[in-house]
């Protein structure tokens, strides 16, 4: 029973957090929600990079696809049609709403299924490639998809994505069947963030549970064996291509779910929010925390986003006050948060040089990465191919 103590404690802490936050008036709930979205993304990428050992540099594509699924089916984007289904949005005039409005809860499932399908479509022709070529192909997809959304306002005269203006006024989630007394849960608002918080918390907990179950499953062991030695795995009767495709599809599902949640939370979806930097940021979280270790990855996500939201503005203030004290305009006007990717670059380099297995290492991965004769294996920690 001992090993359940810490997780149970953390889950309880997560559930009471909004109450504590309100009591002490620390206003941390908004950043915590964003951190949770990134935890979700990192857990998804962990399946691809950590478990299966495939480097994916275009993970942001699935995030974008998930967000656009919500944008398309829960806003007035397709104003030509009018279709509502279980939506929390209601029209003020009483006339039927323009565009497609489907309940957020159905869209979550739809986004997951759609991104899984996209993962398979992207993965299927490319998984035969060598590890580094595969990384570049995923990078290519990660660049193409946001650009496609950016140019998608005039596809043969059809406005699919509204271009750089983006899709705005996305419906909030909610449970429209609830009584009036539970107003905040009937339609999630921007003032009371508690429903938003508990939604992402449940999503993250499900993601963690699925991750743990996957790791300990037959498929999880297949991933490890393919990662270590594809040829030997194939000889043991594992089909490497289907195994890798599962990793791609399942990783994509979590990316899509995170994107769908983020899209409705921010309520407006711009193609520029899905840049290459996000792929790298999420990769950084996985590498920093420890590839293949679920708790490490969560810690990595919290640490890096905490750095972004909390530590960098603080350092900025310190540098400014030092600059004011010394009378140096260079220091007092420096914009430290602008250089956060400098930090992420350094984290990637230093982690690979000094501790490639991450803060909380997965024992097996650590041995693979530390192996003296790792050779030129393809997968992360792959076996030598003599």
């Amino acid at each position, binding site marked *: 029973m001992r090993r359940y103590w810490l997780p149970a404690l953390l889950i309880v802490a997560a559930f009471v957090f909004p109450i504590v936050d309100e009591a002490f008036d620390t206003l941390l709930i908004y950043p915590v929600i964003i951190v949770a979205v990134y935890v979700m993304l990192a857990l998804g990428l962990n399946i691809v990079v950590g478990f299966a050992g495939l480097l994916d540099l275009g993970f942001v594509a699935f995030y974008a696809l998930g967000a656009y699924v919500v944008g398309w089916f829960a806003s007035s984007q397709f104003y030509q049609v009018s279709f509502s289904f279980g939506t929390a949005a209601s029209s003020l005039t009483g006339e039927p709403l323009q565009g497609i409005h489907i309940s957020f809860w159905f869209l979550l499932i739809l986004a997951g299924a759609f991104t899984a399908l996209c993962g398979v479509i992207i993965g299927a022709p490319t998984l035969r490639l060598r590890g580094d070529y595969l990384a570049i192909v995923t990078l290519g997809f990660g660049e193409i998809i946001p650009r496609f959304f950016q*140019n998608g306002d005039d596809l043969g005269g059809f406005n699919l994505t509204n271009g750089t203006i983006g899709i705005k006024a996305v419906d909030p989630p909610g449970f429209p069947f609830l009584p009036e007394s539970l107003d905040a849960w009937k339609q999630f608002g921007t003032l009371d963030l508690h429903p938003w918080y508990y939604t992402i918390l449940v999503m993250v907990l499900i993601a963690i549970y699925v991750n743990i179950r996957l790791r300990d499953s037959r498929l999880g062991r297949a991933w490890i064996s393919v990662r270590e030695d594809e040829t030997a795995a194939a000889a043991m009767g594992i089909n490497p291509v289907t195994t890798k495709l599962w990793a791609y599809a399942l990783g994509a599902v979590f990316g899509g779910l995170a994107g769908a949640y983020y899209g409705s939370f921010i309520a407006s979806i711009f193609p520029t929010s899905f840049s290459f930097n996000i792929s790298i940021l999420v990769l950084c979280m996985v590498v920093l925390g420890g590839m293949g270790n679920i708790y490490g990855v969560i810690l990595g996500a919290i640490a890096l986003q905490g750095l972004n939201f909390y530590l960098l503005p603080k350092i900025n203030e310190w540098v400014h006050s030092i600059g004011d004290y010394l009378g140096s305009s260079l220091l007092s006007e420096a914009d430290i948060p602008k250089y956060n990717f400098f930090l992420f670059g350094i984290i990637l380099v230093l982690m690979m040089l000094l501790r490639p297995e991450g803060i909380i290492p997965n024992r097996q991965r650590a041995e693979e990465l530390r192996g003296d004769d790792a050779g*030129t294996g393809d997968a992360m920690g792959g076996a030598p191919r003599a």
Partner: protein
Amino acid sequence: MSTQEVTKTRSRALIEGVRASSWQSRIAVALVVALLVILLEQAAKEPDQFVAQLIIGITNGAIIALIALGYTLVYGIIELINFAHGDNFMIGSFVGLTVLSGTFLGLEFFGAIGGEGGTFLNVLGVLLALVVAMVVCGLLNVGIERVAYKPLRNSPRLAVLITAIGMSFILQNLGLVWKGPAQVPFPELISDANILPGDSIVFRWKDLFIVGVTVPLLVGLSYFISNTKQGKAMRAVAQDKEAASMMGINVNRTISITFLLGGILAGASGVMYGLFNGITVFNVGFTQGLYAFTAAVLGGIGNLTGAVVGGFLIGIIGSMADQYIGVEWTAIVIFSVLILVLVFRPRGLLGDRSAVQGGGE
């Protein structure tokens, strides 16, 4: 054997080849031919525009080819996709700009060369910018290799790739700190005027400048690799590191020299890019680097001729896409080329030299 018989066997071999080919490659060839026909039809309609676009494509292609050579040299020797190479190119353009503005490390060495000082000063400025950028980028590339890649020489390949991505971000942020987030203008040192008489075909001094810098660099590189002792050592290390070191070749030094060469070419192309396009920006290296990587893969990574051919092809594909599809779709077209080549012909058009030579895999 008479000539007729030779032609007969040749045509028979061609038919055999077509019969043996897979459906994938047949479809690919059919698609490429269809695209070429559409393009030529457009060319026949407005030949002037087509030629102008072709020249732009060739000059852009020359810049891309120089960057692609850096990727292909490094990949040929240590099988690493040097992700930071594109950002090295960006640093090259920034160094060139700094030299032209006359300041370095906050010191005012000479007045800014802005194009008002006459032809002699312009030529001198361009040459100085080129040389300084080449030296700085070459040394920077060697330094990056020493610090970031050398300790990981026996690590899994993807670990080194992640390090390279990290270096790319560090360099990009360095550029951001150095010149700020906005586009920075380059002085107009090279005339936009047409060299050729008449208006029908436009070949500007700028285009001549690009060709005039690229060709000697390519000839020099080719001479270095095929005719010098150090070039021979590079080829040997690319084939088999262990055997090369047994023959008394200093492998580490050879790898450093490879990075030096790649950096020199990236520095030169950075300055050329700035002078040709009139602007540069801190993240220019990302897209240009990816275009160049596409070029290297298209030609067959590890293959030097392939990188040059691929560079010109990508330049032309880019300028044609600008004209006939739309500027905003160019990046998508080129990345699609990258994915299609990697998926359907990962060895590239001219063949992956590292694979053929058995260096690595």
